[in-house]
């Protein structure tokens, strides 16, 4: 049986994710997404990945979701709520969900494919071995600038490409399409 905090945050995460999918208002969906991301960040904290939890809240729940909300307000297209309720689609979606969820439950609880090991003691803040799991943000820097130096450079280049791409995409087109 998992401990209480995990159950609480797992329930919060799953409930907010359901709100994201089920709500017909795009702004409510975005709020559900923010709550889901905060719940996942709390789960990162429970897994002793403190740096990633903070990063998740800062980058995802902060920057990315503000961008989403901004675009939702900008487009303000609430056409989906004005049409009739899509019963056929909703039934199909529920069937798909229960089929997939049953598969997930079977895989993780009854198939016996995964060992039910406990996490063990909380690791030290910074260990001598650079590859070992630690809670300190320093160990990220160590790995990023030694073992993962090339991926780090590539992701920096990717951010630059995305920057240029977004600027060229959002420029006003010269000749309007009739």
């Amino acid at each position, binding site marked *: 049986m*998992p*401990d209480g905090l*995990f159950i609480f945050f797992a329930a919060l*995460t*799953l409930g907010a*994710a359901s709100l*994201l*999918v089920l709500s017909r208002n*795009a702004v409510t*969906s*975005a709020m559900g*997404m923010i709550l889901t991301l905060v719940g*996942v960040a709390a*789960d*990162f904290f*429970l*897994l*002793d*990945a403190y*740096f*990633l939890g903070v*990063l*998740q809240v800062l980058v*995802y729940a902060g920057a*990315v979701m503000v961008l*989403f909300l901004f*675009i939702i307000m*900008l*487009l303000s*297209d609430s*056409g*989906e709520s004005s049409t009739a309720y899509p019963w056929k*689609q909703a039934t199909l*979606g529920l069937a798909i*969900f229960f089929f*997939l*969820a049953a598969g*997930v439950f079977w895989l993780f609880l009854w198939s016996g494919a*995964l060992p*039910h*090991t*406990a*996490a063990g003691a*909380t*690791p030290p803040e910074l260990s001598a071995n*650079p590859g070992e*799991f*630690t809670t300190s943000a320093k*160990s990220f820097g160590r*790995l*990023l600038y030694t073992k993962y130096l090339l*991926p780090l450079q590539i*992701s920096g280049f*990717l*951010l630059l490409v*995305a920057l240029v*791409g*977004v600027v060229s*995409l959002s420029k006003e087109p010269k000749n309007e*399409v009739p």
Partner: protein
Amino acid sequence: MENTTLAHHLLLAGLLFVIGLTGVLVRRNLLVIYMCLELMLTAATLALVAFSRFNQTMDGAVFVFFIITVAAAEVAVGLALIVALFRQQKTVQSNELNTLCD
């Protein structure tokens, strides 16, 4: 955290992924579909962190770092594409985007 096993975290990640996949399949608002895609990415990062923690290695957590970077870039480009699409078609409902069908 003594009683929470790897299977519990993976179960949560799997259910989050399934919810996101269902949303991508059934929703029609492009922005909500996009948020559901992000939800699937987040579920994958949760599984990576869980494996990293229970394996006592740092590599999974570093992968999550890269995933967050790529997801941020992807969101920026995707939203710019959606805005450009809205400018042309005046809608973000995927069932009304049928220009190639007619």
